[in-house]
Each structure stands twice: as structure tokens, then as C-alpha cells.
């Protein structure tokens, strides 16, 4: 409850009381300031603040100037342009690239459908429009620089069209059936992509490279570790001592060692643990390790969520005669999982960032692609550009995911009752 007593001295007491009942949580409306007032208030309010502003301003200005001068003057970005495909799909054969496009179209169409059938209005205030158009222009400029091929351009145009078509169809056919279709579509999305990549003399996992590999490894880790993590969390809170002990031991051992050590485990030791004669490709073993590692963290997050559910909920569920399974599935888990959304998404962001570790154990992911790009004789000494570009792509994905999580949090009212 934010109240500014000083500014509202003249407000009648009843009005304050009424406000309190309505539980207004937004900040008091901002006063209109002239630019000069704003500068005085926000930058030079006290002597200390003035000194701070000058020092920080000089430092930030110099840094910004140096970075911009380097990025748009000194630095030669041809290495990134030349190797853009290497970044995205690595050594994936180009004549098979239609498989990736097909997967992309599927996902984009589905995103459109989901968005359309959710039927939420876009917010059209000036701030949003400006921010979105700036982002869109920056994105298009970046792509304009990176992509020459008219084929790729038309395919990307097609993606936008597919998205819009998805939104339209989703909005028109809104309802129960559409919701079911969307759900089924998401459930099938991952199998669909994997099948399309491999079907009819397709491309095996060894040549899923570049950003494609980061995305696939990340998605596998996220999708598989979610149910396993929930089971582990429930096991950890089980009333059976044997189950509890095993789950605690598993979770703590997995969390105790770094992901890198677990990946080495997957590379060096896992082949020996499998029954003789069974051989898994390295990439599958590594994805198993990603899943195992992530499951332990998901389990701890879910456990936190479970602890946040009031015990009255358990008692109420029991009182209406639900069995343990139904109580968990219908009453406890929905509440527990809702509370874990922020933590869960930030874990998934860090798992996605961690897929860059693939580079260190010999896979051609995006980071490795960056290293390969700057290793060629033609572009010697360009590792700043190549690494920064890989970082930029990771950053875009991670940053937009965290923004999305914040919005979701606000919409679902996490932390509010």
C-alpha cells in the first residue's frame, strides 16, 4: 500500500479510507515536471548525487562512445555475415534445410494460433508502440545486414504470414475445439520436429549443429526435466522414508557437482553403465545428462512451491474425499506450480545458457561455431566480433524469456492472494 501523506494532506479522511478498502496498489500519479525540474530532481538533488551523476555520466558516456566507435567504425563484421549459416545450423547440409524451415513454420503457426485463441487485446499505448517498432526496426536492420539470399527472405516473409494466419484462424475459431487443437499441437511439436529432421534419409543428430543444437538441447532438457522434477519433488516430500531418502540423495548429489562434470560423466562414464551392446550416440547421452541435471533443480523449485501451499488446502482436499493422487493433481500441484513460475523460467533460462557448454565437450553449437568462424585464416583476430554475436543471440533469447516471465507473473498474480 503506497500512500504519499505529504501530497495528500487535503484529502478527506473518508476518501483515504475508501482508497484503503479498494487496496489501490499503483503508485501515486506522477506529477508533471518540466525537463529542468526532472533533471534537478533525478540527477542533482543533493551535492553527493551531483558528484555521482557527473562521475557516472562521464564513465558511461566514455564507455558507450568507445563501444559504439568500435562496433560501427573499427570492427569488421563480415566474419559474422559470412558465417551466419554456421552460427544458425552449423554443418547441417544446406539441401536438407527445408526440414528446419518446416519445423519453424509448424512452431510459428502454433504460436500464432495460441495467441489468437487466447484472444487477448494488444495494448496500444504510445510507449508500447514506440518500443515495439524500435525493436522491430532493429531486428529487420540486423537481418538486412546478415541475410542476402532472396530465398531466405521470402521464407522469412512466409513465417510472418504464417504467424498472422495463425492469429486470424485462432481468433475466428476460438473455443473449446481450438483449445484442444492448440494443446495437441504443442504436445506434438517436439516429436514433429525430430521426425521431420530425420524422416526419409534425413539428417542424423550428429549434424544438428549451431543454434539449432542449442535450441534442441535446451528444449529436450526443459521438456523432459519438468515431469521428472515434479516426481522427484513429490518423492522428496513423501511420507515413506525409503522413497524420501533416495530422492534427497539423488537431488543433492546431482546439484552438488557442476554441470560440466556431469557432461564429462555422460561422455566418459555413461557408455560403460549401459548394458553391453547398447550404444547411444554422444549427443543423446549429453542430452540425458542435461535432463538429469535440470531435473534436480526443477525438483527443488517445485518443492519450494509445494511448501508454499497452505496445509488447509490439503485438509480441505481430504475433507471432500479426494484420494492422494487426485488431491495432488487437482488441488495441490496447480497451486504449487503457479507459485513456481518465476523461479522455473529463470531456471530454464539458465539451462538454455548452459547449452553453450556443448562447445567444450566437442559439439558444434553456436559458441563453437563462433570459435570456428574466427579461426579461419581470412578472419584472423576477429574473435571479439564472433563471440559478441553469439552472446547477442543468447542474450536476445534469454532477455525476452525473462521479460515474458515478468508479464506472465503479473497476469497470473503470483504472490498475490
Amino acid at each position: 500500500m503506497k500512500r504519499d501523506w505529504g501530497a495528500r494532506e487535503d484529502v478527506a479522511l473518508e476518501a483515504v479510507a475508501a482508497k484503503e478498502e479498494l487496496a489501490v496498489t499503483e503508485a501515486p500519479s506522477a506529477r508533471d515536471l518540466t525537463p529542468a525540474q526532472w533533471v534537478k530532481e533525478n540527477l542533482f538533488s543533493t551535492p553527493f548525487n551531483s558528484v555521482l551523476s557527473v562521475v557516472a555520466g562521464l564513465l558511461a558516456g566514455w564507455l558507450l562512445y568507445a563501444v559504439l566507435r568500435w562496433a560501427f567504425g573499427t570492427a569488421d563484421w563480415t566474419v559474422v555475415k559470412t558465417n551466419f549459416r554456421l552460427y544458425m545450423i552449423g554443418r547441417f547440409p544446406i539441401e536438407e534445410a527445408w526440414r528446419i524451415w518446416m519445423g519453424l513454420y509448424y512452431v510459428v503457426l502454433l504460436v500464432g494460433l495460441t495467441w489468437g485463441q487466447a484472444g487477448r487485446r494488444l495494448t496500444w499505448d504510445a510507449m508500447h508502440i514506440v518500443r515495439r517498432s524500435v525493436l522491430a526496426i532493429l531486428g529487420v536492420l540486423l537481418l538486412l545486414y546478415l541475410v542476402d539470399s532472396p530465398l531466405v527472405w521470402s521464407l522469412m516473409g512466409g513465417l510472418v504470414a504464417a504467424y498472422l494466419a495463425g492469429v486470424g484462424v485462432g481468433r475466428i475459431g476460438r473455443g473449446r475445439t481450438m483449445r484442444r487443437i492448440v494443446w495437441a499441437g504443442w504436445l506434438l511439436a517436439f516429436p514433429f520436429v525430430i521426425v521431420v529432421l530425420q524422416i526419409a534419409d534425413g539428417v542424423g543428430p550428429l549434424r544438428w549443429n549451431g543454434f539449432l543444437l542449442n535450441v534442441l538441447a535446451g528444449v529436450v532438457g526443459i521438456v523432459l526435466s519438468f515431469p521428472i522434477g515434479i516426481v522427484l519433488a513429490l518423492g522428496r516430500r513423501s511420507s515413506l522414508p525409503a522413497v524420501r531418502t533416495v530422492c534427497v540423495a539423488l537431488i543433492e548429489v546431482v546439484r552438488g557437482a557442476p554441470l560440466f562434470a556431469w557432461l564429462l560423466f555422460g561422455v566418459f562414464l555413461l557408455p560403460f553403465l549401459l548394458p553391453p551392446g547398447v550404444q547411444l550416440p554422444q549427443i543423446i547421452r549429453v542430452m540425458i545428462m542435461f535432463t538429469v541435471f535440470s531435473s534436480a533443480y526443477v525438483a527443488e523449485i517445485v518443492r519450494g512451491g509445494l511448501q508454499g501451499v497452505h496445509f488447509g488446502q490439503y485438509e480441505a482436499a481430504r475433507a471432500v474425499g479426494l484420494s492422494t493422487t487426485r488431491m495432488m493433481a487437482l488441488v495441490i500441484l496447480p497451486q504449487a506450480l503457479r507459485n513456481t513460475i518465476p523461479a522455473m523460467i529463470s531456471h530454464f533460462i539458465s539451462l538454455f545458457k548452459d547449452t553453450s557448454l556443448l562447445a567444450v565437450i566437442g559439439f558444434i553449437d553456436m559458441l563453437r561455431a563462433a570459435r570456428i568462424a574466427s579461426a579461419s585464416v581470412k578472419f584472423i583476430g576477429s574473435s571479439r566480433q564472433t563471440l559478441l554475436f553469439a552472446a547477442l543471440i543468447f542474450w536476445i533469447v534469454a532477455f525476452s524469456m525473462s521479460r515474458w516471465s515478468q508479464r506472465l507473473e503479473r497476469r497470473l498474480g503470483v504472490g498475490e492472494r
Partner: protein
Amino acid sequence: MTEQAIPARPPLWRNVRVLRVFGQIVFVLAVVYVLRELFLNMQFGFRRQGITLDFDFLQQRAGFDLSEGIAYGPNSSFWRAIRVGVINTIRVAVSGIVLASILGLLIGVGRLSTNWLVRNVARVYVEIFRNTPVLIQIIFWYVAVILPLRLVGEDGEERLFFLSNRGLAVPWLRGRPGAGSWVPWLLAGLVAAVAVWWWRTRVNERTGRPHHRAPLALLALAAVAAAGYLAAGGPFDIELPAIDRGAYAGGVKVSGEFAGVLFGLVFYTAAFIAEIIRGSILAVDKGQKEAAMAMGLTRFQQLRLVVLPQALRIAIPPINSQYLNLTKNSSLAAAIAFPDLVQVSQTVINQAGRPFQIIIIVMGTYLILSMIISVLMNVANRAVALRGTRR
């Protein structure tokens, strides 16, 4: 409904207590069976390749060299190599934790500054460093920042610090002969500080005047120590690093690899610590600050006596997990060939071919390190936790 209709005991297959015991036995048996199968598979596989599962190989000659760490040569044993790795990991982790805490605290407080510029610089910092993989950051620092820096300068040139592909060199204290005579002065200073503290507390209790005991006690300590410093004829020199025939001389020097890992870990973790600091200061109920204001405390007193103690209570558990993350992330040092535990282990696996034993050692070491950090942080937590809620 008659009472006889309810049997005194349910039959065995419906007795919950029996079912629970039975279910757990089955569960344990299944787990044991799976583990046994895995172990037998492994034993079979290794035996076929002629690899034993004992730890004797650790005494053999390693035959490879390591670029830095405690005394070690190619003739040392595998065991020695692993110890070098462990100590290097601890070096990186400890210095990383200290530096990341300082930077994170500064940026976290900056995020809440009333100064628009400071607030937004801090925010941009957090968003950039938090959302890019720490591995890319480490490689970037090493490959793109440190390696291209050549050591330029004349022989004998001194500077505040050097950063080049030769590593990082910073000033350090160097004791002169007879530096020990300063120690009694230092002790006397401490006694003086305690006395001043006690005296000011008494004055405050008796007269109610502000005690200012912390700054005054520090002043006493500093005065006595400075007097002793002069009396002992300047027992310490601040030694600036200098160039000597294309290498560093003087000061404290760390390798370029160490500096790369350290920068990467510190800048990355500091962004997370800053967010924790900010979140926990914001999480302190606003009424607490208002109450402190109403009691007439100054802004600094509000922060020190009311807000920070409560914020610390919220911040310690997540900061603990950031420390653990930093320690575990130090394994990424292997990507730029810094001989930490994981990098050395990888080499040992390639040379000696005993992945099982090595991975056991690695996992065990990290478990122990994590436990030490957690225990230390629990001690800190207990010091600030709410009375009555200690767990």
C-alpha cells in the same frame, strides 16, 4: 450398522501399514537392482578394456605439465596433479566470491539509487551480464580482451596495475626486515579502540548524547597504528608491479587464464548478487522504514539499524546459492585451459583412462566444497536470523 461389521483388523492386502512397508521394500530392492546392474555393466566394460577400478594409478607418473599452481612437474604423480587442480579451483572460487560480493553489493545498491543515471547504468549492467552465458563471458575476457593485450613498456617501468597476455599484476605490501616491531603497536591500537568504544557507550548510556562509537574507535585504532608505523620506521612498502625483461616483477601476479576466469565469474555472479541485494532491500516492509523515520533516525541509521539487518536475513540463503554457483561455474575454466580441477581431471582421464575413479574424485571434491560454503553461510545466517525461528 452393527459394530461386528467392521473387522478388528483389515486383511493384510488392505492394511495401510503393511502396504507401506511392503511398498518401500519393493522400491529399495528396485533401486538396489538398478544400481547393481549399472555397476556390473561398468565393471564388465572396464574389465574388457583391462581397466581396474582401484585407485593405485594415482601414484603413477603423470607425464604432463600444468601451467600454474603449487609446485608440480611432469614427473609428479597423478595425485599431485589433482591436488594442483583442487587448489587452483579453490583459489578462483575464493577470490571470485570476495570480488563478486563487493561488486554485486555496489551494483545492487546502485539499482536503488535516487539518481536516475546511476540506477539505469546499474540496470543495463545487470541485464547484459545476467542474460549471456557465463562460458561466453569467460572466453570473451580471455580470448578477446586479455590475449590481444601485449605487454608494452620500458624495463623498470612501474604502474598501478598491468593487464596483458602475461597476466594481471597488482600492487602488494612487502615487509621490510624488522616489520615485526609494528605488531605490538597494532595490538595497542586494538586495545585503544575497545577502550574508546566502551567509554563512548558509557557516555551515551549516562547522558544520552550520541555515542559515535564506531568512527571514534576506528580513529583511535588508526591513530595508534599510524604512530607505530612511523616509530617502526615504515615497516611496509607498497610495491608497485614493474616490467622486467618482458615479464612482471614485484607486486602480485596472476596468469592471464586466471584473470580471464576471474573476470568472467565475477562480472556474471555480481549481476545476480545485485538483483538479490535489491530484491531483499525492497522486500523489507515499508512500514519499518517509516517507523524508523518517525523515531527520528537519520537516513544512514535507518539503513544500518532497521532496513539492512532485515534485508540481510532475506538475502543470505539466495546469496549462498550464488556462491555455490560461482564455485561450480569455476569448472568452466577448463574452456580456456586454466588448470582447475575439471581441466586436470580431463587430462588425467585421457592419460590414465580411469573415468570412474576420477569422476568420483571430482564429484566428491565439489560436494565437500559446497558443504564448506553452505556451513559457513549457515553460520552467517544464524547470526542474522530472527530469534526463535532458527532452524
